[in-house]
């Protein structure tokens, strides 16, 4: 058992801060991720007008389609928070249910992104077509990879929980994955506005 699993009668953990080290570590990680995505977003903002002979953003972006994808990812944050809530109540059935729904919504979003990339490629926007296309694919691709990693974590935790092999607190583990998932959602909130809705 780690120090994180020992809590006194007031709920305080026996760590130097009195807080969960796992949770503190996750927030530190998410803080550092802001720098990663900040760099990718800034690079895109610099290069979005550098289209060369390729298509311009306004020529390829399908706002209605991306709006639906954004809505799906936003709703996955709701199902994730419901999973965390159920986990804290010790309601395993609803925890599994909401985690699975979250993973399915995430998979729908990633599927939409794959469709979007394919459509862009068919319209002549390859990875090396222009600085705009390269920076766009790197930014949204990195985000897509984050969503995919989140889906893998969600499905893994369901399997691990069903085998009752979760080390430490089950609810805290679900909460950690939830924090990661919500972070991926807030990054998309920024990408959707800055990249899709604001024209170059």
């Amino acid at each position, binding site marked *: 058992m780690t120090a994180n699993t020992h809590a006194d009668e007031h709920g305080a953990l026996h760590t130097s801060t009195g807080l969960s080290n796992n949770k503190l570590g996750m927030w530190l990680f998410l803080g550092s991720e802001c720098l990663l995505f900040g760099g990718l977003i*800034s690079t895109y903002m610099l290069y979005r007008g550098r289209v060369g002979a390729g298509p311009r953003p306004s020529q390829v972006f399908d706002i209605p389609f991306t709006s639906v994808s954004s809505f799906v990812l936003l709703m996955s944050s709701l199902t994730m928070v419901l999973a965390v809530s159920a986990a804290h109540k010790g309601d395993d059935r609803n925890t599994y249910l909401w985690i699975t729904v979250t993973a399915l919504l995430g998979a729908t979003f990633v599927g939409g992104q794959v469709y979007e990339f394919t459509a862009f490629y068919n319209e002549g926007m390859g990875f090396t077509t222009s600085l705009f296309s390269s920076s766009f694919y790197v930014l949204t691709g990195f985000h897509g990879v984050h969503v995919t990693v989140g889906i893998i974590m969600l499905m893994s935790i369901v399997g691990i929980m069903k085998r009752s092999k979760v080390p430490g607190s089950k609810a805290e583990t679900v909460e950690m994955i939830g924090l990661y998932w919500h972070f991926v959602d807030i990054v998309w909130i920024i990408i959707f*506005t800055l990249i899709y809705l604001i024209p170059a």
Partner: protein
Amino acid sequence: MTTDTHTTTEHGMSNAGYVRIALILAAITALEVSTYYVDFGPLFMPALMIMMAIKFVIVVSYFMHLKFDNKLFSWVFYAGLILAIIVYIVALSTFHFFS
């Protein structure tokens, strides 16, 4: 803790509260998308930036529970976020992005 849908839990809000927050987020997203079809004139950019910031803060505060959690978590996360904003505003300025 028992299952309840109307009272605040120690880990944040009730499930009904989360659904209300999601509806607010959906409404703001619909407003954001409307800026693509409706001409907001000079308000276009500020309106989008404000709506983006509101959605960001709502998700972080309520879905990620920062509003209800220990302030140290808020400091850790917002320090990273503010550092990123400052670093990249400076970086973009050196490339005359804002001029």
